[in-house]
């Protein structure tokens, strides 16, 4: 009996959810400042992409994107 549940396939899922969440927390914390090398270049690239998307929405969907 773990956490009031007998079936290991069910308490396993319960514990598995907590462990998976912890994996995300640990990964996020360890890599908090990584992946930012050439952040400026990455952001510029996304800006270009966003401009094209905005154009598509205005020209092809007739939608005005509020997000800017």
């Amino acid at each position, binding site marked *: 009996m773990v956490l009031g549940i007998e079936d290991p*396939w*069910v308490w396993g899922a319960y514990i598995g959810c907590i462990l*998976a969440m912890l994996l*995300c927390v640990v990964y996020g914390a360890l890599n908090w400042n990584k*992946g930012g090398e050439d952040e400026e270049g990455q*952001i510029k690239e996304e*800006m270009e992409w966003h401009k094209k998307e905005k154009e598509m929405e205005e020209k*092809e969907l007739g939608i005005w994107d509020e997000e800017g």
Partner: protein
Amino acid sequence: MANDILVLSIIVLIYLALVIYVGYVAWRRTKSADDYMVAGRTTHPFIMALSYGATFISTAAIVGFGGTAGVYGMGLLWLTFLNILVGIFIAFVFFGKRTRKIGHNLSALTFPEFLSKRFNSRFIQYFSGAVIFLGMPLYAAVVLIGMARFVETTLNINYNFALVALAVIVALYVIFGGIRGVMYTDALQGTIMFVVMAILLVAIYWITGGVIAGNEALTNLVNVVPAKATATATATGFTGWTSMPTFGSPFWWTLVSTLILGVGIGVLSQPQLAVRFMTVKSNKELNRAVLIGGVFIFLMTGTAFIVGALSNVYFFDSMGKIAMQVVGGNADKIIPAFIAMALPVWFAYLFMITLLSAAMSTLSAQFHVQGTALGRDVYETVSGKKGGASVMVARLGITVAVVIAVILGFLLPANIIAVGTAMWFSITAGAFLTMYAFACFWKRSTKAGVISGLVVGTVISLFWIVFEYKKSAEALGICKALTGQSVLITAQPWPTVDSIVIALPIAFILTVVVSLLTKPPSKELIDKSFSGV
């Protein structure tokens, strides 16, 4: 009653004030920091993760799957496990980074366009666009049903009336330009949902006497309730709310193949989520979002499933009935009913407003994807014309999508939210997942290979849904009309095996085999796609 209306009005007003305030802050931020200045364009990881989460976790997940947990029990927590591990960790860390980079390299603006440019095939674009346009109304319809069920129970009004009223609001929302959820508003909804679900998790264990006591009560419940209350479920493999169903039984197959695998794996190939990665500014942002996303999804789906399962204990203690008996056999109403009965009225209203607004942003993202699928991916690719008429086509597509979703809302039977969501996820997994994964990770995969996987995966998924998967085949009635029997193979377990279990492996093997037999893609295409990856 008058008092309740006052409480509801106050909550709605506070909510609207918050939305307007957040919208104003976002607007000022984009206006003051020059839009095209790099510094002004970084998004806080909290905003990124919660807005992704709000698109990912819809009303369907909370109302539909929470209610389903009232029937299938805590075994459904495997879906939460996959939601975190696959839907957040693998999606962000592995797929997200590559989708972002490759999408930018190829200037792909939609999911079908991403796949089409990666493999240099226009067929992929219009075929995928058509699958999305034709299949997605089902998903939009179940989100709409989830909203209507909640309003029905919380405000105690007629379901059909609620459905029409909500459809009108959604249509107005879509027509008056709010088609794209603003990231900040999404993040606000995400934050409120986060808090609300945390309160709910504490509340359910408070009501049932703590984590261990509550779970034990649920474990024992199956021995306490009259056998006839669970007779139908037991006959198909149900063994209790804290134990897995009998291995290989229909109950087991539905839980494991449709609900857990269909949704848990299918999330990777959701078009509206894949596109979202291209709006991410940097890998750092994705790394940080993993932390927040993991906690967010745990609290959303984990809470919904735990509450759905434990609501049986609450209902049995207070009314002597299990959840399915209380809601007249419609699992879609379990979560709304539990909240209306067990929690204070202000909480029920707060929950309703949050769910409705989250559903709005999910729905608008869905309609947006459908509009571009028809206008850009199908019409422009097939006709070769850009702009002009495609605006008309896209708008027409959105209108048709809204209308179909509403009609389906009326036609679909009870107990449909979770299964409807799962079916859509399975279709996308059968059709797109292999191609999408290879687009990101296997440079040797060829155009011919992925096209065979795409076409065969789609055809098998649809065939299975129409002719073999009992729940859908019976509802559609096509198999019955053509062959005289409701499904082709009646022997267990086939009528309860989800299409993903059949279509995904076949599409995968076929793609690998055909790719290896055909000429590798050109070096230029691979270099261009993977530059900087």
